[in-house]
């Protein structure tokens, strides 16, 4: 997998401290992500634990899925406030977002394990902003993330925002995750 130059799609907005129990509640962890049909199920339950008023800000009470597809959400980009993905180490959290079609998350900062899992599993790109982007964009706006310049353009309003550079994890993200990165750097011998 190589990195896309542009990630474009509708955005879904959440607030601060979106924990892994909200992203994928414990009762759905019995699916085994190693089995493709079960992996797909995680998309259906992604964000089902978010309390209604906090889903789809600023209005709230906007469902993450629409009537056309139970598994894949119409949204491509997720924006949260601070400490996104706090709580458990369940890799099912970035998996659920990936299965629901989320390609990138933008937050002020992440809880450590969620960030690692997202990067090492190559499920989505976790971008950070030095300011609260979740207060400046509305659920449903059309966004375009341009990776080369670390900018995000709100096509709905015309505003442009800057993202933090990806930093030390950039090589892992570019490689597509921990395994391809380890192969690239000689830590692992490439699979035949």
């Amino acid at each position, binding site marked *: 997998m190589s990195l896309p130059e542009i990630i474009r799609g509708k955005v879904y907005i959440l607030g601060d401290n979106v924990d892994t129990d909200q992203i994928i509640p*414990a*009762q759905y962890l*019995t699916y085994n992500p190693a089995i493709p049909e079960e992996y797909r199920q995680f998309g259906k339950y992604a964000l089902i634990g978010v309390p209604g008023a906090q889903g789809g800000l600023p209005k709230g009470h906007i469902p993450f899925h629409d009537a056309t597809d139970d598994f894949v959400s119409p949204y491509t980009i997720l924006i949260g406030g601070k400490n996104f993905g706090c709580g458990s180490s369940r*890799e099912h959290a970035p998996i659920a977002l990936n299965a629901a079609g989320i390609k990138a998350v933008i937050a002020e900062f992440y*809880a*450590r394990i969620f960030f690692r899992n997202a990067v090492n599993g190559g499920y989505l790109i976790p971008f950070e902003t030095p300011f609260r982007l979740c207060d400046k964009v509305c659920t449903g706006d059309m966004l375009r993330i341009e990776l080369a310049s670390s900018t995000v353009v709100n096509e709905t309003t015309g505003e442009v925002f800057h993202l933090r550079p990806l930093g030390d994890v950039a090589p892992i993200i570019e490689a597509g995750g921990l395994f391809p990165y380890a192969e690239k750097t000689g*830590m692992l011998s490439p*699979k035949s």
Partner: protein
Amino acid sequence: MAGMTLTEKILAKHAQRDRVAPGENIWVDVDVLMTHDVCGPGTIGVFHKQFGKNAKVWDRDKVVIIPDHYIFTADAMANRNVDVLRAFVKEQNLPHFYDVGTDRYKGVCHIALAEEGHTRPGEVLLGTDSHTCNAGAFGEFATGIGNTDAGFVMGTGKLWLKTPPTMRFVFHGELPPWLMAKDMILSVIGDIGCDGATYKAMEFDGPGVYSLNMEERMTLCNMVIEAGGKNGVIAPDQVTLDYVNARNKLGKKYEVVKGDPDATFEFEKVYDLAKLKPVIAKPHSPDNKAFVDELVGMRLDRAYIGSCTGGKITDFRAAAKILNGNTVKIDTFIVPATTEIAKNLKTETLDGKTLEQVFLNAGAKIGEASCAACLGGPADTFGRLNSAIRCISTTNRNFPGRMGNKEAEVFLASPLTVAASALNGFITDPREYFA
């Protein structure tokens, strides 16, 4: 050159380096990898996919598999996941497996690791569970990882880690009888916030820490993740060594590591235990701190005493002191973390009654050793909050929906506070029972 903290020294040693500095990314050798029924199947999937169907784990003796999350449930998928673990253990011929339905079954992984001698000073322990930081109580580096990372470790015995800076929390004085380690850690989390230690190590120090037994030290380290911490750690002393040596059935050698006296801490906070009062975390975050005396009288529907952070024998001794001879006013659930603790409930006595009798006489219900309702789980899980009720609990998280229903309210507190509150049906200051 400034010295290194305990965390830095352990990581440097495992990266075969003389020194590491905070922020440096290093590849470390792993001493123990733990996984359980929720993350094990995914980890095994990653391992097979990446290393091949016939691949072998890097070291059979270093992989520990502990089913504990969804155990006493009729949920077919949950039971299927334990079967996935069984098949893998058989395929790899793994010696450290604590299977459900056998004499070896243990219960909650973090306490099982300690009781079965898998936690040792100076080592690196990684587990597919965020509360793996629990084992830092033994003076080792321990942290939670995901399936991809764990699959990588299974095949290579290594993982890249970013060296965290260390924050130090020093406790002076000694705990009065109405306070427990849970009050200490809920204070810290409330003070620094649920992201106050993100990416950082939290080291606990001072006479107030070294007067605690190992179970209470585990309670401190267990909850550093609730402040975003990467690992919690307490330098080993004689109490640590006595516990570890008594449990070291496997006869593993280990090397005690201590921080340098001139190590640099990024942050330091000093507490005086003589000034601390019982602490509680209000819904829906463990950092939503209040003192119990500010909330006295708030009506409750349920009390829950269990989990890795609140279901050890020390927790039950504390609860029993208050429940002994009294009757609870609300549904009260007792869930021992491990089968060893469950056995101790039947043998340890208070005023001539076993702890089990004390609880049953008080009207509490006792469940089987496992994670149970700490993380909600399938609908038939013992103690699960299936409706929007208000619960006081000794567990470690009160996020929306964590114990079941997402409209339910969970208050986190020490076993003393939970037991006192169970007797009244409203939040109660345990100091009332120590007059």
